[in-house]
């Protein structure tokens, strides 16, 4: 894994300045993405997943703003680009497969035209006929009938709409695809179809993909690495096998144990308590008030995301260089500071 990352997010902070206070939606997010890699981003509702996606595309709208950090696409730093340069990158270099495909297509435009629009605005220098050709190709690539190009969104089923969205997103051969809950509104069969299509295309194009969702099952089936978010912070990041078999952060542990499995019928174990509001986080680790293993140190500051095992990072005071530590040692450490 010596390949150069295509996308690097460094210490990204995103804030929404609302009446109720400052929403710290993304805090110190660090993530690297290599070409062809599939990274999953999970976390409960409101944990800042979509915000991260929008931040990468620099589409955070007021009252939100990127408050700090850097986003590198290859050698370009996105947060400092002009709006026009950024626009050219959107859709072409970084594209998005939207959440809820149901409403993501312009209801009064034919599918084909919605694909072509992207091409026109990225100045490919193609003739109309050539672009139509490309659009049809994009549809074919997503296993849609070319006829679909002449249809309006409402004439398509949910799965077809989602494919159409994918067709639009990949039409420009992007280097990074961000898929924000692309299938959460679909039933399992359609979901599988769509995800298979997306996976195939991604492999063909060699793009990196960030899959956002809260369905751990889907993640298990699709991604190579997974990042777990909680209340705007990244709690754990690692290979999917590592995270599933050996979750480090207690939050991840609880999350995984609450998953329905075939051989555990009728057992339900949720995570007690509720997520704190992002405007009013508890001091220390954001999870400390729900964490069964919380220690005194956990109430001091948010632990940084550190590599505790090879390519397995976690933000938790329970570990030091991959070794689980006891509370006493921590207290010592705190005292030492």
């Amino acid at each position, binding site marked *: 894994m010596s390949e150069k990352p295509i996308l690097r997010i460094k210490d990204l902070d995103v804030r929404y300045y*609302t*009446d*109720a206070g400052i929403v710290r939606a993304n805090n110190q997010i660090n993530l690297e993405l290599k070409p062809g890699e599939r990274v999953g981003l999970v976390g409960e509702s409101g944990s800042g997943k979509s915000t991260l996606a929008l931040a990468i595309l620099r589409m955070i709208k007021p*009252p939100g703003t990127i408050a700090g950090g850097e986003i590198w696409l290859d050698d370009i730093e996105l947060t400092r680009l002009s709006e026009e340069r950024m626009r050219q990158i959107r859709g072409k270099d970084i594209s998005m497969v939207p959440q809820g495909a149901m409403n993501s297509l312009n209801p009064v435009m034919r599918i084909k035209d919605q694909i072509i629009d992207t091409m026109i605005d990225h100045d490919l220098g193609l003739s109309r006929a050539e672009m139509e050709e490309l659009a049809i190709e994009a549809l074919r690539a997503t296993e849609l009938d070319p006829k679909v190009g002449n249809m309006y969104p409402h004439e398509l089923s949910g799965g077809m709409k989602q494919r159409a969205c994918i067709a639009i997103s990949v039409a420009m051969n992007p280097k990074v695809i961000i898929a924000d809950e692309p299938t959460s509104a679909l039933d399992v069969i359609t979901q599988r179809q769509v995800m298979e299509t997306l996976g195939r295309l991604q492999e063909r194009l060699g793009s990196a993909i960030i899959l956002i969702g809260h369905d751990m099952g889907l993640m298990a089936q699709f991604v190579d690495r997974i990042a777990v978010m909680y209340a705007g912070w990244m709690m754990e990041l690692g290979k999917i096998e590592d995270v599933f078999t050996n979750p480090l952060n207690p939050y991840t542990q609880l999350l995984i144990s609450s998953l329905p499995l075939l051989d555990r019928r009728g057992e339900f174990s949720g995570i007690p308590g509720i997520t704190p509001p992002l405007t009013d986080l508890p001091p220390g680790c954001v999870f400390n008030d729900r964490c069964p293993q919380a220690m005194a140190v956990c109430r001091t500051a948010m632990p940084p995301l550190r590599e505790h095992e090879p390519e397995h990072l976690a933000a938790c005071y329970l570990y030091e260089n991959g070794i689980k530590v006891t509370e006493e040692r921590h207290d010592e450490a705190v005292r030492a500071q």
Partner: protein
Amino acid sequence: MNQLLSILQYLRRNKSLALGLGILVFLTLFTVVGLQFIDRKVDPYPLAAPASIPPTLSYCPRTEPDCPNPKAYPFGTDAQGRDLFAVAVTGTWMTLQIGFLAGGIGLVVGTFLGFTSAFYGGLYDAVIRLSVDVLLTVPGLLVLVVIASSLGDKNITVTGMGLIISLLAWRGPARVIRSQVLSMRERSYVMMARLNGMSNMAIIFKEMMPNLLPYLGASLVSAVTSAIFASMGLAALGLGPLREPTLGVTIYWVINQSAFLRGLWWWGAVPITIVALVFVMLFLISIGLDELANPRVRRAR
């Protein structure tokens, strides 16, 4: 206290509402304080003052050199000797009275019909819908002329004017609210209310109505606006309480007596400014309420 603070905080963000309410406060203060300086029964009517005096803060009638009883006409007087300051002070309220009466009744009736028709559907709905469509074709002027000619030898009163305008003012709201309710009827909480054993009327009034409140508020503003427009239009056609110093009637006299040509610019400027102010106020409040009512804006909590 806390609540007041949060309201103020909200107003800081919702600038239109704040500005609109600001104008409202200003107009209220202006008229309420103004009332102390005038004789409400005399000053806004003809012959209360020397005619055609430009705005002046210190006025002495030319006829009396030593000026024993100086009276100022800060807004001037009109050609019939109304004190335009008194007109402004009393007329604003009269105008709003017409507007709110007509707009209010129009909205209440319209809301009731809109609600029931959308909620019960069927033949009732069809009848209401058809009636509204048909009634929409009746020229308002025609109705007014018919009423005016059966009115006897008095002018329409301010209240009467409001009532007459309200006769036709319900058509629009009925139409619009019906479609609002139609979409609302499918909401889950309406189903939930039924599961709670609530009656149809209870559902309409307790569940649906409150949620339309911001919307109704906005509609009230627009209903009031159109009612004031209507009253001014009718006054401009000479069908109104010609003696009463409502803003519409004042504008009627301005036009009728060629005030601009005669150089009596203040005669027109006073009512037009206030009308514009009133409308800007309603307009801003309406935009503000709109924002308040828009769930997408609210969601950002």
